[in-house]
């Protein structure tokens, strides 16, 4: 009964008087679009403001105060003292250099090897799924698991790598104990662990290259190497610029591997900037100073990423 009552007046209400408003609405649409869009975005925006933008602003404000973990409130206003202290601290600069050094050590192999393995996996005629899976698999491991596996492999006198080296009659490198070698060891671990991500991006990029280009070039007598150089690499350029920027950001954010595998040692040789922030903020309880150090780091990452994007934007018309 109720349904009959509601359905009957509807057509009259909806069909005839609604037509003109629809037209009016359509004209107003560019502006009217905003509200529903905002409504749909609201849940995300609320969380984003609450947990990302809010804390970031709070951190920025905190960096101008002598905020401490063991007292409530912001504490005394410090002006630019925290920034001055960070910029004159040799520990801050050392940690920043360690982060950059790690980025230099990991970014090239993570891009070149990912590309090479993607090309090889693509060429495999049989068991292609196996190669795809094999290269991607380490990526799904949590950082703590990766770190524990590699700590045992690197362990002097007992570890797999150390024993292999001595069995081959070579001197046993002090993988994580030598200040010069420790960062390289961490880089090796990281390359093994995160290669899979770039590998998958390159595989996806390879799928987008039309097959007929290869066919046509083969008819023109191009060899496999020429095909890679003249077709594959240029057409992968957009993927490469994406991979590079993602990789640089990921490498600069390094924390887990050092924290678990070396604790920033030996003798601070692998302390990354994020660990420095962690040390001053959470061990020394100096959250105001830690906020200043992380703000400076944010500026560095932002500058590097912007620099790279501007460089690749300029190149794009030529591609």
């Amino acid at each position, binding site marked *: 009964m109720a349904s009959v009552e509601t*359905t009957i007046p*509807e*057509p009259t209400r*909806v*069909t005839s008087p609604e037509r003109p408003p629809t037209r009016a609405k359509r004209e107003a649409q560019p502006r009217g679009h905003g509200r529903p869009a905002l*409504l749909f975005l609201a*849940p995300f925006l609320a969380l984003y403001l609450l947990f990302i933008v809010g804390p970031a602003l709070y951190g920025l404000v905190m960096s101008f105060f*002598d905020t*401490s*973990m*063991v*007292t*409530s409130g912001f504490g005394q206003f410090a002006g630019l003292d925290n920034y001055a*202290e960070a910029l004159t*601290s*040799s*520990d801050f600069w050392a940690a920043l250099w360690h982060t950059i050094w790690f980025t230099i050590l990991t970014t090239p192999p993570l891009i070149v090897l990912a590309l090479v393995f993607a090309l090889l996996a693509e060429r495999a005629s049989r068991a292609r799924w196996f190669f795809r899976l094999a290269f991607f698999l380490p990526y799904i491991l949590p950082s703590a698991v990766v770190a524990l596996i590699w*700590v045992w492999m690197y*362990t*002097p*006198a*007992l*570890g797999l790598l150390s024993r292999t080296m001595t069995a081959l009659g070579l001197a046993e490198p*002090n993988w*994580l*104990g*030598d*200040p010069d070698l420790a960062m390289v060891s961490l880089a090796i671990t990281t390359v093994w662990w995160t290669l899979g991500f770039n590998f998958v991006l390159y595989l996806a990029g390879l799928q987008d290259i039309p097959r007929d280009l290869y066919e046509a070039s083969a008819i023109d007598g191009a060899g496999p190497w020429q095909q890679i150089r003249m077709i594959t690499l240029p057409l992968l350029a957009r993927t490469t610029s994406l991979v590079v920027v993602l990789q640089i950001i990921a490498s600069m954010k390094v924390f887990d591997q050092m924290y678990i*595998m*070396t*604790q*920033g*040692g*030996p*003798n*601070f040789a692998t302390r990354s900037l994020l660990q420095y922030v*962690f*040390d*001053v903020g*959470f*061990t*020394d*309880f*100096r959250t105001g100073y830690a906020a200043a150090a992380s703000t400076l780091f944010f500026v560095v990452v932002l500058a590097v990423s912007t620099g790279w994007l501007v460089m690749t934007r300029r190149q794009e018309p030529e591609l």
Partner: protein
Amino acid sequence: MIGPPRNALTRRDVLRATLLGALAATGAGCSAVGAGLLDTGPAPGTLAYWNLFGGGDGVRMQQMEDSYRAANQAIDLQAVTLAWGNPYYTKLALATVGDRPPDVAVSHLTRMKTLAAGNLLQELEPEDLARHGMTAGNFNRRAWEAGLVDGKAYAIPIDTHPFVLFYNTEICAEAGLLDATGKLSPIKGADQFVDALTKAKQVTGRYGATHGINSDTASPWRLFQTLYAQLGGEVLADEGTRVVLDDDKTKQVLDFLRLLTVEKGLMPGSVDYQGAIALFATGAAGFHLNGEWEISTFQAAKTPFSMTLVPNIFGGDYAVQADSHCLVLPVRPDQDRARLDLALGFVRSMLDQSRTWAEGGHVPAWQPFARSEAYRQLTPQSEYAAAADAAVYDPPGWYSGSGSNFENVMGGAVGAVEAGGMSATAAIAQIRSKLSHLASTAPPA
């Protein structure tokens, strides 16, 4: 004809309903959060207790909690175990600043003072403690006095956990290092120590002794502090505002450590904490230098071992690096006499179970048990009981204490010397520069 408009309406209805539902859910969520934020505190019958014990200590602490529960069935004991180190102290400080602290918490004696300086801990009045039978005289004097802040008590020490010498009884017997009763013959002085390690190395074919060096700043610091304190050296003064490192004594200790690792190869200069344990447990070394808490590890590994004091290497007054686990009562907004007595009753219960705790290797601070025959019978745990009276704590200072940046600075440099990558002189310069920076920084509390 009827279809499309009905659909349009239904879609809107659905959207509206969804939105309403979402709002309602958010509202409910907010009210739940609000309730959490505005909650005035736990029910009167509950007791929240935070600790940082894992491994064998964690198992024993749970036994002690269980027996407290059995004896106090009306009280709901909510025990929380958190990972030790920074995460623990961060959470404890933030919970207290946020007015939602546990009733009782474990803290290291050397880390408790920063919390007390931030006014996060309740001062424990002698008359309140006396109501529960806890008077200063009932505690190990050194641990009690080291825990006082301006002469006031903020923490109840439950133990002293010193750096000790583990020795493999089979290897040492073969090397002729044991006396007639099967205990390690006393080692006095640097030469005898080198001699003992050399003999042990001849038996094992690998190393004389081990301790953690790679990615472990605590062990090198503990060993250094033990030897340096035997020379009478101090690192910090005036609550950490002054660096008083004695270059000659520091060099003497560092040179000796370098002799053991680099020059004589008696100790591995590059092994991490777990690796050092593994080498000792598998018989690749006759001695192991570590905190006594690793007793459970070697018992589980069925290593034939015993424990004793770290020898007096430099002949001064005997000294050994140590810290104490304490129970503290964080400041809370709803504190009253009933809650205080509930918390102190729990503290007393933990002290009464000192035997269970001592089995894990810790030297009991509670004298009624420490002086008992039962403790004397407990071996090898009571072999190094004297360490509690000779304990040297990390120097007071806001950046000092177990797991602190002070230990990282000291241990990092000492470890670098032991690994052979740094000269003693360079290490001293580095320590001085890093500590001076910390000493001149205003404390966070």
